[in-house]
């Protein structure tokens, strides 16, 4: 027999899910939604994938990279290693806590950089490949329910919590009402000036042994620069792996060894 509390919770959840499209979200529901977004993307163990970054500049020139991304959230470590094109192969970024190191294989040298530096000069930043921490870093406010193409979405505005160091102080999210996946994200400066718009046209969910539940991973990310209109970056993620990585991987020595 169901306990009273569980039954009430079940009814509440059912009602809220059924009426999700019609009713606005209250403060607690909005908060929960953002927590859910974080939670679904959280991979408790290690993470590895192959990313393809394709960028177009407003003057018509183009650039593309293929890279491997590795993450170990438990130690707050993150790494990207470029494999293509030839001129960029072997370059890499290693982040350990607040330190971001860039490796220049032709020189065999490392350089400590600011954490917010863009990745290899693309429109993508390290947080594009990083763990989602929206509920920790931002206060969420429900704006309204809208249509994004043929999809019904919740529009939520996130404002950075005081004292938290984030790349964008204001973020707006358009979250699919059915799947609860982010479809669109806009980042703005404190002044309100729009900086970039990002679309997530597809998500892959896969079962993670270490987490004991599904992990949601974007298959494709489209980033449009709103400051330099005409600049855009597309990130395609492939070969996502959630198995434990080698213990010594997140080191300078490992990254250096990959281009020898």
């Amino acid at each position, binding site marked *: 027999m169901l306990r009273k509390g569980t039954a009430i919770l079940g009814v509440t959840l059912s009602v809220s899910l059924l009426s999700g499209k019609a009713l606005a979200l209250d403060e607690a529901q909005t908060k929960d939604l953002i927590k859910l977004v974080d939670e679904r993307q959280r991979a408790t163990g290690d993470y590895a994938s192959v990313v393809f970054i394709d960028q177009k500049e407003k003057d018509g020139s183009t*650039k593309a990279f293929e890279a491997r991304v590795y993450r170990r959230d438990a130690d707050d470590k993150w790494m990207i290693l470029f494999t293509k094109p030839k001129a960029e192969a072997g370059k890499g970024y290693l982040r350990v806590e607040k330190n971001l190191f860039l490796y220049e294989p032709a020189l065999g040298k490392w350089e400590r950089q600011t954490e917010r530096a863009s990745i290899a000069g693309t429109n993508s930043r390290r947080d594009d490949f990083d763990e989602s921490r929206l509920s920790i870093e931002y206060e969420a406010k429900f704006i309204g329910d809208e249509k994004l193409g*043929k999809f019904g979405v919740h529009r939520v505005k996130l404002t950075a919590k005081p004292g938290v160091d984030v790349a964008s102080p204001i973020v707006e999210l358009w979250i699919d009402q059915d799947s609860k*996946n982010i479809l669109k994200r806009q980042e703005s400066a404190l002044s309100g000036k729009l900086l970039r718009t990002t679309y997530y046209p597809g998500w892959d969910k896969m*079962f993670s042994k270490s987490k004991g539940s599904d992990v949601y991973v974007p298959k494709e990310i489209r980033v449009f620069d709103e400051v330099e209109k005409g600049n855009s970056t597309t990130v395609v993620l492939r070969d996502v792996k959630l198995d434990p990585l080698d213990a010594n991987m997140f080191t300078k020595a490992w990254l250096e060894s990959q281009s020898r």
Partner: protein
Amino acid sequence: MRLLEMITLIMKVAFRNLWLYRVKTLVIGTLLCLGTFLGVIGFSLLRDVEGSMRESIIGSIAGHLQIYSDKAKDDLALFGGGFMGRSDIGELPDIVPYREVAMANPNVQAFVPMGLDMSLLGRGNEMDESLDLLREALKNQDPVAIQTRIDAVRFQLEQLKKEAAEQKKLAADVAIIEQREADIAKAEAPGFLDDLKTVDEAKLQFLETKIAPLSGEKTPIYLGYIGTDISIYQKNFSKFHVIEGQDLPPGQRGILLAHRARENFLKVIVARLFDRLNKRLVATNIKIKGDAENERNAADLARQYSAIISSLSRDQASDLSKKLTDFGINGAKPDQDLITHLTSQLKEFLTVNDENFRARHEWFYKNIAPLIKLYEISPGETITLRAYTRSGYVKSLPLKVYGVYSFAGLEDSDLAGQTSIIDLVSFRELYGKMTEASQKELAEMRAQVGIKDIEASNAEDALFGEASQAQIETRSLEAKPGPVEAVINIKPTIPDRFDLDEVTRGLALNAAIKLKDPSRLAQTQEELIQAFKDKGLGVRVVDWQQASGIVGQMVNIMRLVLVLALGVIGLVTLVIINNSIIVGTLNRIREIGTMRAIGAQKSFVVGLFLGETCVTGLIGSILGAILGAVVLVLLSKVGIPAVNDVVSFLFSGPRLYPNIRWDIIIATPFVITLVATLSSIYAARLAARVQPAEAMQEKE
């Protein structure tokens, strides 16, 4: 009366009147003397500055003419605006047709393709450098180097510990400082550093991520550079010369650092402050005391002790402390530990004043400079230039530093010495132009992934619209197991050579044109404008003065200021002359009337007054010209010091030695006398209207 007799008479009367009305004469004479003096000095210097500036600009990077795209959004400004901000001067997509048109003109000697841009140089702090060296020593398994590097790190840890203790006294959040102290204590603990024999990633990562950031961050440096065909450039720009290292060989990728940029941004700050003070004290003889800039630099210098200590090993620090004691710098408490004692000694040594500066400057370069890395970058090293493409993306390229260059006579000019020189092929890469091979590789990569092109304007419709195939959520059965490998089968190398043919074609942003006969500059400019137009090549052809930006306009501004100053003096003089003649006329009505009654014609009266002005003008202005000439002779011996870097550029060196220009010295007094005399015609004619009868009625 014959003309000669009349002139003689007029002159006699004029001289008598000049003495009679000597106060008026003195005022007018002095003003004309001053005007002539300023005119002689001003126009002589202006011509000298114009000449030296032309030499600076044409001989360094501008050439006689410059061409750039007519689609440019900004004007070409080789010396202004181009350094701190990036101007959009468009591009010349392929230099071949432009060169062909230019070289077809018989007066064109050379066509030098160019491109101006800037890059960012990232820099670690002293601890980052020490840890890099330690890692290198551990990799090479060199026991001596390992021990030396460990000692250096230990010494820096000691300094960080002392700094943390100082910060703790002032910090609001003590917990942060205590965490730092704990990290330092861990690194100093027995068994941490002394057990390092091979690369221990855990320990090194701890030092690199927890300890290195404690040494502070250096601000990034923006390095302006010009990409060019270096062999053609060297042949045609006479002022260019390499002062350290070697020339950039043809066909070789690399960079020649600009001397002043290296001195200003890549030299250790303590040496820079010594240099700045020395320059002002020696070159311009400005004392420290009483001069705001010198006092500020001296105060900054006194704070640079930690930068010196952090770059020393323990032995070097101990040795330096002894030498300072021998020099008479004992510090506050000689019985304290080495770092505390050396800190107080250096604080005392770096506290300079007008009396001790020269000796300490000399001592610094003799005893301290050899112990520290004076420049962050030196010839033989390789640096990574990181440039922003037009759209804001970053492109990085490692380049070998071949040498340091300067422009002859402009070694101390910041304005002329900020732009480093790189080969044109590397410039194009940093600018964002892809080679054919790179474009092919990119197309293959893109085809492999199969990405659809979507524009920002219709992204939502394309990705999520009714017609889209969007499948927001799909399931992979499980994350794929298997090893993660990313071994790259390419050994990255620093590009070092290029085919010489590559610089004779392809992109440039602008081009300098050197002429065989510079006196036909304007004519050649017109001919080239027409020739480019005839071939359908949209370019702007500008002369060196226009191409140099605000600097080139400085002479025009100076000329304007001089002419305005002379104009104001002239106007005041003319008003005074006219007023004094009118007042003189009123005072001398009886005299004029008498002269007219005894038969003097109106023309005689007019002549008399003009004669007086002419004589006053001649005496005053010749005196002014003589004074001007004397001052010019003196200045030509001692020179005029360039008080700042802009002036140094205008002077084409640290001092301007003016030429004695006899044409100006001779012509100026005559021009001034003529103008003064002519301007007194109106007043003289007023005087001539006095009727004899009217004059006779006047009371004394």
